[in-house]
Protein backbone atom coordinates (compact mmCIF):
# COMPACT_ATOMS: atom_id res chain seq x y z
CA UNK A 1 0.00 0.00 0.00
CA UNK A 2 1.99 2.93 -1.33
CA UNK A 3 0.88 6.26 0.04
CA UNK A 4 3.69 8.30 -1.49
CA UNK A 5 1.65 9.18 -4.55
CA UNK A 6 -1.15 10.66 -2.47
CA UNK A 7 -1.15 14.41 -2.02
CA UNK A 8 -1.41 15.96 1.43
CA UNK A 9 -5.19 16.16 1.35
CA UNK A 10 -5.51 12.49 0.43
CA UNK A 11 -2.96 11.47 3.01
CA UNK A 12 -4.96 13.14 5.77
CA UNK A 13 -8.13 11.53 4.48
CA UNK A 14 -6.42 8.13 4.35
CA UNK A 15 -5.11 8.49 7.89
CA UNK A 16 -8.59 9.31 9.10
CA UNK A 17 -10.01 6.37 7.13
CA UNK A 18 -7.47 3.97 8.65
CA UNK A 19 -8.33 5.23 12.14
CA UNK A 20 -12.04 4.73 11.48
CA UNK A 21 -11.46 1.24 10.12
CA UNK A 22 -9.24 0.25 13.03
CA UNK A 23 -11.97 1.33 15.44
CA UNK A 24 -14.59 -0.63 13.50
CA UNK A 25 -12.27 -3.64 13.31
CA UNK A 26 -11.66 -3.54 17.05
CA UNK A 27 -15.40 -3.44 17.72
CA UNK A 28 -15.91 -6.38 15.35
CA UNK A 29 -13.09 -8.34 17.02
CA UNK A 30 -14.58 -7.61 20.47
CA UNK A 31 -18.08 -8.76 19.45
CA UNK A 32 -16.75 -11.92 17.80
CA UNK A 33 -14.60 -12.70 20.84
CA UNK A 34 -17.54 -12.40 23.22
CA UNK A 35 -19.55 -14.63 20.91
CA UNK A 36 -16.82 -17.24 20.62
CA UNK A 37 -16.06 -17.43 24.32
CA UNK A 38 -19.74 -17.45 25.30
CA UNK A 39 -20.49 -20.26 22.85
CA UNK A 40 -17.57 -22.36 24.02
CA UNK A 41 -17.66 -21.69 27.76
CA UNK A 42 -21.22 -21.01 28.87
CA UNK A 43 -23.50 -24.04 28.91
CA UNK A 44 -25.05 -24.11 32.37
CA UNK A 45 -28.49 -22.52 32.22
CA UNK A 46 -29.69 -23.80 35.56
CA UNK A 47 -28.69 -20.37 36.83
CA UNK A 48 -28.64 -16.79 35.52
CA UNK A 49 -25.24 -16.09 37.05
CA UNK A 50 -22.00 -16.90 35.27
CA UNK A 51 -20.36 -19.69 37.31
CA UNK A 52 -16.74 -19.41 38.45
CA UNK A 53 -15.89 -22.31 36.14
CA UNK A 54 -17.41 -20.50 33.17
CA UNK A 55 -15.69 -17.29 34.25
CA UNK A 56 -12.27 -18.93 34.29
CA UNK A 57 -12.95 -20.50 30.90
CA UNK A 58 -13.88 -17.12 29.40
CA UNK A 59 -10.72 -15.60 30.86
CA UNK A 60 -8.50 -18.24 29.25
CA UNK A 61 -10.49 -18.05 26.01
CA UNK A 62 -9.85 -14.31 25.71
CA UNK A 63 -6.19 -14.62 26.65
CA UNK A 64 -5.66 -17.47 24.21
CA UNK A 65 -7.28 -15.54 21.37
CA UNK A 66 -5.27 -12.38 22.00
CA UNK A 67 -2.04 -14.41 22.05
CA UNK A 68 -3.09 -16.02 18.77
CA UNK A 69 -3.77 -12.57 17.34
CA UNK A 70 -0.37 -11.33 18.47
CA UNK A 71 1.47 -14.26 16.93
CA UNK A 72 -0.59 -14.08 13.75
CA UNK A 73 0.18 -10.36 13.38
CA UNK A 74 3.89 -11.05 13.34
CA UNK A 75 3.72 -14.04 10.97
CA UNK A 76 1.17 -12.28 8.73
CA UNK A 77 3.37 -9.26 8.08
CA UNK A 78 6.25 -11.55 7.15
CA UNK A 79 4.16 -13.64 4.77
CA UNK A 80 2.57 -10.52 3.24
CA UNK A 81 5.97 -9.21 2.15
CA UNK A 82 6.89 -12.62 0.74
CA UNK A 83 3.74 -12.94 -1.35
CA UNK A 84 3.23 -9.36 -2.55
CA UNK A 85 5.00 -10.05 -5.83
CA UNK A 86 3.07 -13.19 -6.73
CA UNK A 87 -0.36 -11.62 -6.19
CA UNK A 88 0.38 -8.49 -8.22
CA UNK A 89 0.30 -9.79 -11.82
Amino acid at each position, binding site marked *: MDFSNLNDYDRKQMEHLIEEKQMKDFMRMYSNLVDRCFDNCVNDFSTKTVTSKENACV*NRCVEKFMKLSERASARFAGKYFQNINIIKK
Partner: protein
Amino acid sequence: MNFVRNQMPPPSAPRGQSQQPSVNIQMAEQELDMITTLFNNILDSCHKKCIQPNYSEGDLNKGEQVCIDRCIAKYFDVNTKVGLQLQKMEKVTTRK
Protein backbone atom coordinates in the same frame (compact mmCIF):
# COMPACT_ATOMS: atom_id res chain seq x y z
CA MET B 1 -34.76 -3.19 17.18
CA ASN B 2 -37.65 -1.08 18.43
CA PHE B 3 -36.26 -0.94 21.92
CA VAL B 4 -33.89 1.73 20.66
CA ARG B 5 -36.70 4.18 20.06
CA ASN B 6 -39.00 3.15 22.88
CA GLN B 7 -36.64 2.74 25.78
CA MET B 8 -33.80 5.26 25.75
CA PRO B 9 -30.97 4.34 28.14
CA PRO B 10 -30.11 6.91 30.83
CA PRO B 11 -28.11 9.91 29.61
CA SER B 12 -24.39 9.38 29.30
CA ALA B 13 -21.96 12.24 28.82
CA PRO B 14 -20.06 11.76 25.56
CA ARG B 15 -16.31 12.02 25.78
CA GLY B 16 -14.61 15.02 24.28
CA GLN B 17 -17.62 17.30 24.28
CA SER B 18 -17.49 19.20 21.03
CA GLN B 19 -19.76 21.39 19.00
CA GLN B 20 -18.76 19.72 15.71
CA PRO B 21 -21.88 17.91 14.44
CA SER B 22 -20.02 15.12 12.74
CA VAL B 23 -18.18 13.97 15.87
CA ASN B 24 -21.34 13.71 17.94
CA ILE B 25 -23.07 11.88 15.12
CA GLN B 26 -20.12 9.54 14.72
CA MET B 27 -20.07 8.61 18.39
CA ALA B 28 -23.83 8.16 18.55
CA GLU B 29 -23.66 5.99 15.45
CA GLN B 30 -20.87 3.86 16.91
CA GLU B 31 -22.82 3.28 20.10
CA LEU B 32 -25.93 2.39 18.10
CA ASP B 33 -23.95 -0.14 16.06
CA MET B 34 -22.52 -1.74 19.21
CA ILE B 35 -25.97 -2.15 20.72
CA THR B 36 -27.43 -3.58 17.54
CA THR B 37 -24.58 -6.05 17.11
CA LEU B 38 -24.82 -7.13 20.74
CA PHE B 39 -28.57 -7.68 20.46
CA ASN B 40 -28.28 -9.67 17.24
CA ASN B 41 -25.49 -11.83 18.65
CA ILE B 42 -27.61 -12.53 21.72
CA LEU B 43 -30.49 -13.64 19.49
CA ASP B 44 -28.17 -15.99 17.61
CA SER B 45 -26.38 -17.45 20.59
CA CYS B 46 -29.43 -17.91 22.77
CA HIS B 47 -31.35 -19.45 19.89
CA LYS B 48 -28.50 -21.93 19.55
CA LYS B 49 -28.33 -22.66 23.29
CA CYS B 50 -32.04 -22.74 24.14
CA ILE B 51 -34.15 -23.67 21.13
CA GLN B 52 -34.34 -27.14 19.58
CA PRO B 53 -34.19 -26.90 15.78
CA ASN B 54 -37.03 -29.38 15.27
CA TYR B 55 -39.56 -26.63 15.99
CA SER B 56 -42.29 -28.83 17.44
CA GLU B 57 -44.43 -25.75 18.01
CA GLY B 58 -44.39 -22.00 17.34
CA ASP B 59 -44.67 -20.82 20.93
CA LEU B 60 -41.80 -20.70 23.38
CA ASN B 61 -42.36 -23.35 26.04
CA LYS B 62 -41.64 -22.66 29.71
CA GLY B 63 -38.20 -24.29 29.61
CA GLU B 64 -37.16 -22.20 26.61
CA GLN B 65 -38.38 -19.01 28.26
CA VAL B 66 -36.36 -19.62 31.41
CA CYS B 67 -33.29 -20.61 29.37
CA ILE B 68 -33.58 -17.48 27.24
CA ASP B 69 -33.80 -15.15 30.24
CA ARG B 70 -30.76 -16.72 31.83
CA CYS B 71 -28.88 -16.85 28.54
CA ILE B 72 -29.38 -13.12 27.97
CA ALA B 73 -28.27 -12.26 31.51
CA LYS B 74 -25.16 -14.41 31.15
CA TYR B 75 -24.33 -13.10 27.68
CA PHE B 76 -24.46 -9.54 28.99
CA ASP B 77 -22.12 -10.41 31.85
CA VAL B 78 -19.66 -12.16 29.56
CA ASN B 79 -19.80 -9.12 27.28
CA THR B 80 -18.87 -6.88 30.19
CA LYS B 81 -16.17 -9.18 31.58
CA VAL B 82 -14.49 -9.54 28.19
CA GLY B 83 -14.52 -5.77 27.79
CA LEU B 84 -12.88 -5.26 31.19
CA GLN B 85 -10.29 -7.98 30.47
CA LEU B 86 -9.37 -6.38 27.14
CA GLN B 87 -8.98 -3.01 28.88
CA LYS B 88 -6.66 -4.57 31.46
CA MET B 89 -4.62 -6.24 28.73
CA GLU B 90 -4.34 -2.93 26.84
CA LYS B 91 -2.86 -1.21 29.86
CA VAL B 92 -0.34 -4.03 30.35
CA THR B 93 0.90 -4.18 26.77
CA THR B 94 0.17 -0.51 25.85
CA ARG B 95 -0.51 -1.83 22.41
CA LYS B 96 -2.84 1.01 21.33
